């Protein structure tokens, strides 16, 4: 029996889909059987991030409404035989699936997969409740911005009242240089405020844009810093103890000058 993990955030655009794609790929790379479920009905994107948009025949609504069998709707990944995607429907809306149906779906998927990763839509409406209905664990993604952390706080409250206790936190798009100069909240600030366990920190990385352009998750790029951060999170999900990535920035000429003048 596998784990069902929902990736959620409240705010849009903080990296839920990127996180789902990368963690799923990293776990499949480690040899696990993984299925990614896109619950963002009407605004599906996980297929594009995974580079599988041309292979969609059936979607999640076809499965829950009985138009096809579950196996027919699962799309096998290009790179890994043990990785599958269940795409969202694009022409329906969030009410096309009920939390009850999601629970049954996740039960079925858990039979066949080690990890079921659910990409949650932004917002706190029915799409959110669908996405968390079948999950037994939750990962909250945020960025070091007031608005994103505020929404994460709200989501953590909603998860807890839905009996999804102890969600873990991913802080995405941190810019070490800005943190160093006191222009961005650091990891401790955010963990302090949200008071949940941190499972990883992802540095801002232009390679994410390149990898999304190509439909190849960044974990496949050994030079991508964000990819490395996601590989580490995947190992933590497996239960390994992995230290946080070293995100210290080397002193710039300006910093050295400042030190010299004693104005640090």
């Amino acid at each position, binding site marked *: 029996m596998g784990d069902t993990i929902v990736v959620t955030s409240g705010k849009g655009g903080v990296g839920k889909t990127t996180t789902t794609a990368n963690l799923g790929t990293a776990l499949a790379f480690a040899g696990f059987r993984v299925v990614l479920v896109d619950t963002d009905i009407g605004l599906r994107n996980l297929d594009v991030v995974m580079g599988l948009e041309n292979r969609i025949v059936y979607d999640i609504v076809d499965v829950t409404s009985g138009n096809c069998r579950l196996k027919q709707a699962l799309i096998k990944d290009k790179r890994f035989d043990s990785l599958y995607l269940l795409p969202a429907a694009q022409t329906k809306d969030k009410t096309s699936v009920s939390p009850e149906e999601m629970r049954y779906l996740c039960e079925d998927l858990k039979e066949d997969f080690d990890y079921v990763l659910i990409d949650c839509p932004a917002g706190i409406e029915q799409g959110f409740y669908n996405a968390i209905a079948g999950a037994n664990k939750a990962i909250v993604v945020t960025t*070091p*911005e*007031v608005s994103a*952390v*505020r929404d994460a*706080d*709200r989501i953590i*409250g909603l998860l807890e009242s839905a009996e999804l206790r102890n969600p873990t936190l991913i802080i995405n798009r941190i810019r070490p240089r800005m*943190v160093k*100069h*006191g*222009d*961005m*909240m*650091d990891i401790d*600030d955010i963990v302090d*405020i949200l008071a949940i366990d941190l499972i990883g920190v992802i540095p801002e990385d232009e390679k994410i844009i390149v990898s999304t352009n190509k439909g190849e998750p960044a974990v496949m790029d050994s030079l991508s810093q964000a990819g490395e951060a996601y590989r580490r999170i995947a190992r933590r999900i497996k239960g390994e103890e992995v230290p946080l990535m070293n995100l210290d920035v080397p002193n710039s000429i*300006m910093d050295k*000058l*400042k030190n010299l*003048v004693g*104005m640090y």
Partner: protein
Amino acid sequence: MWEFIFRVLGRDNSNSRKHAKERLRLVLVHDRASISPYLMNRLKEDLIEVISNYMIVDEDEMELHLNQNDREVTLVANIPIKQIRRDYMERSQISS
């Protein structure tokens, strides 16, 4: 002149990180304070239960609400007491 050099060297004391954290803290105090009437009632009942160990309160006249201002949220309770229990010393010793 110094001002110019400070600016060039980036010694701008704005420190938006502290700003962000403080604003976030205040916003969350307000967000989290939106307690449902159900929770408020539970809190009221729990309070009555605890206080009843020491004194008899007027449950009907009891008032409980959250006060918000820009800086903080406070829980304000107005609990009229009908009678102080004479036996509370003994009661606390028995239970401990």
